[in-house]
């Protein structure tokens, strides 16, 4: 089969893409915030979730490195046979698509809620998805480079938001730590992990790494780095807002609203919002790319580029139709819905593939079938 995508990216670009995808894209609404019951423990949840997620990413990377020149979709076909493999491929593409839908809608909602309430959410979604699709069409190489350069801008603004409200921070809001023990933190930890499950896209990127061996190292770094940034976010949120935290619609946005230095440097939320938008578009581009290449490989299409714009249009349509309103979207992002959904798909797929690989290597039948 012809190479569907020809570009190569470096390990650093992979890490940049993953960090942008995870640490930045959801932070503005910080969906975990509402779920944690003693809200001051949210940072523990974030930290725990990150550590658990490292395991998952290690699993995905190991699976990918079994045959470093195949995407997870091609692998599924090799391991599970033609029809079952294609089915798994379609399920994965569907999952990435729903992640993209959620991100696009989230971005649109953030804008209509916070900055331009009179503009329909469709405007923002169409604009961002179009640009993301345009970037995705140019290949992973371009997306990777953009991620690498945007990461610094976004991290700079994230650092601003995290440091500058220092005069509002009351660190005693963090106490009492673990007031009700670990028990009530289990489910929220699941929420954090469920967002990290998006990293199954790593299975798609891995064969396009210049050195596939880098995948493990850089993706673990990316998980830890995004986990740290999010933990830092959580600490800052608790320190500034304290018990009021669960009532906020967009906690990180409100945090950037708190910045006020010398009555001059203040109300920069639109700027941080713009920087955050950039990272969101990168995330969209990455997942649209994943969908398109995955779909092309499932159906044996030689050029994935022609699939990107239609998939983008579907993303917008699904993003609009799936959620009635912002609260509906937030409900969807809770562990009970999205968490279980992505757990079943990603962990299920990975487990099935591991099992298949295990049996293929054990049974003589499998060895004969392996290419």
């Amino acid at each position, binding site marked *: 089969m012809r190479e569907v995508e020809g570009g190569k990216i470096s390990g650093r670009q992979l890490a940049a893409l993953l960090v942008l995808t995870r640490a930045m894209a959801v932070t503005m609404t910080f969906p975990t915030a509402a779920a944690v019951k003693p809200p001051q423990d949210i940072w523990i949840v974030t930290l725990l979730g990150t550590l658990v997620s490292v395991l998952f990413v290690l699993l995905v990377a190991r699976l990918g490195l079994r045959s470093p020149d195949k995407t997870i979709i091609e692998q599924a076909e090799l391991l599970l046979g033609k029809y079952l493999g294609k089915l798994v491929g379609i399920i994965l593409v569907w999952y990435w698509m729903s992640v993209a839908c959620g991100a696009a809608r989230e971005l649109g909602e953030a804008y209509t809620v916070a*900055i331009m309430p009179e503009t329909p959410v469709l405007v923002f979604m169409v*604009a961002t998805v179009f*640009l993301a699709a345009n970037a995705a069409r140019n290949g992973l190489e371009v997306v*990777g480079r953009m991620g*690498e350069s945007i990461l610094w801008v976004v991290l700079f603004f994230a650092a601003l938001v995290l440091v500058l409200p220092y005069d509002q921070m009351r660190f005693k809001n963090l106490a009492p730590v673990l007031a009700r023990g670990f028990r009530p933190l289990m489910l929220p930890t699941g929420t954090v992990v469920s967002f990290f499950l998006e990293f199954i896209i790593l299975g798609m990127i891995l064969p396009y790494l210049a050195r596939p061996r880098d995948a493990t190292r850089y993706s673990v770094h990316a998980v830890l780095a995004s986990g740290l940034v999010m933990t830092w976010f959580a600490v800052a949120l608790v320190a500034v807002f304290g018990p009021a935290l669960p009532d906020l619609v967009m906690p990180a946005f409100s945090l950037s609203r708190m910045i006020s230095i010398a009555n001059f440097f203040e109300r920069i939320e*639109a700027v941080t919002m713009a920087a955050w*938008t950039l990272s969101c578009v990168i995330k969209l581009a990455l997942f649209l790319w994943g969908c398109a290449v995955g779909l092309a490989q499932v159906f044996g299409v030689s050029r994935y580029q022609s699939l990107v714009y239609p998939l983008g249009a579907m993303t917008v349509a699904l993003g609009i139709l799936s959620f009635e309103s912002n609260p509906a979207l937030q409900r969807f992002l809770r562990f009970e819905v999205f968490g279980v959904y992505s757990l079943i798909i990603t962990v299920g797929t990975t487990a099935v593939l591991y099992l298949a690989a295990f049996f293929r290597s054990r049974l003589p039948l499998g060895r004969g079938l392996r290419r």
Partner: protein
Amino acid sequence: MLGTLWRLLFRRIAGVRGSGGTEPRRAEVLISADLSVNRERIGSAFGNSPDLVTRDLWTGARGRISALVIHIDGLVDKRLLAEAVVERITGLQLEWTDPAQAYEDLKTRLLASSGVEEVDTLGEFIGGIARGDAGVLVDGVAKGLVCALRGWEQRSVEEPTTESTVRGSKEGFVEALRTNTSLLRRRIMSPQLWIEEVTIGRITRTRVAIAYIAGVVNEDIVEEVRNRLKRIDVDAIHESGNIEEFIEDAPLSPFPTIARTERPDRVAGALTDGRVAILTDGTPFVLIVPATFTMFLTSSEDYYERYFAGSAIRLLRIAAFFISLTLPALYVAVTTFHQEMLPTPLVLGIAAQREGIPFPAVVEALLMEFAFETLREAGIRLPRVVGQAVSIIGALVVGDAAIRAGLASPAMVMVVAFTGIASFATPVFSLAVAARLLRFVMTVLGGALGLFGVAMGMFALLTHLTCLRSFGVPYLEPLAPLVLSDLKDALVRVPWWAMGRRPEFTGKKAPMRQAPGLKPRPPSPEREEVHRLLDTEGVR
């Protein structure tokens, strides 16, 4: 998708190109032994133009041998022609009895110009004359001699007008190719400076030189330059700009992917980085490939001033570039959509100023931008004396009268004026133009969607720039892809002693450009001792 549309559109506009040239095939015609036939043919080839000078000479024993000297008036050094050619033919060459002997003598020892070339086709002979050489024919010999005697009026080497610096060389390239290559040779004395020459243009036959440093340059890039130049098959090359448009990587992009300069020091610097220079006869502007985005934001002075100053000025310039690209858009976006971002007194002030303005901010911005660009263009094209009048009128019209007439607010005038000044801070005109054009797009986006629109515009721009390549080198090279070792000369310039490596993409072949550990240190006693020992042993 957009790209495809563009291409379709352009193909319609450009039309399908016809093949074949109008060039008469003169090259195969041989030089005749009969002088009058040759004279006839050469004369008709030039349409008997009055500046074609043919001089009949009689020489040899009893003046039996007839010779012809042909040149174009004004392209030949006349004094040299008289001394080195005419005098040698006529001066008492009594021992010559037959033309072949006379011809041999002339070729091997008598003609005293630096280069004498023997040709046997009329095409080559005529070509030599058209280039400014003098041709010599002897009756009865079916060959001709082309003597290099080129000498014409040319501008002297002056300070370049477009890239002036406070510190650094004051030399600029001139129009003559040979002078320009000599300016380069004067800066790079090593024989490693290799120069190749090609002729482009069916009618203009412009000479184009490719210069690079052998052993440093990546041969693939040189080969690519050769191939791209070879493809050019046009009537005329008037300026390096013509060549640029034929060989650039992104012909549909507003951004330049080939750098150009009139400073020999800048070219020399690029050559030692492993880049390739393309010099075109007839223009002082030399092309440099591959070019990256950051090259367009540097000035040669950054490298001569101390690195603190150089880096600070460079950062300022980068900021100015972004201001020239986005400031009106940001102003429109903030005043239209995000008033809460400004301090309250400022918002009130702006609102009061805009009280009587009949347009929305975006229209006001576009109007003022348009007026400003028109003024600037008028100021550049007019004679200097009138130009000043224009700028005074412009300042009055745009600055004062527009405000009084209630067409624009003072804040907007300030924004537009500052944007204009910021765009002058971009050192390379072609990049400044790209920013000027895109500024209008950005302003519209900012007026339509606020900061979201500006962010989207920047994202689209970033996608575009990331896709660009210049002769195989990514356009945003040290930034995306991030090449840590090249960041030393991108946004800032590190001190020279830290510039150990050449740029990653162009200088791979000879990665180190200097010895390690050149950072100056205070003399320590032990080192002093070592130096003294070395000195006494005569090693140093």
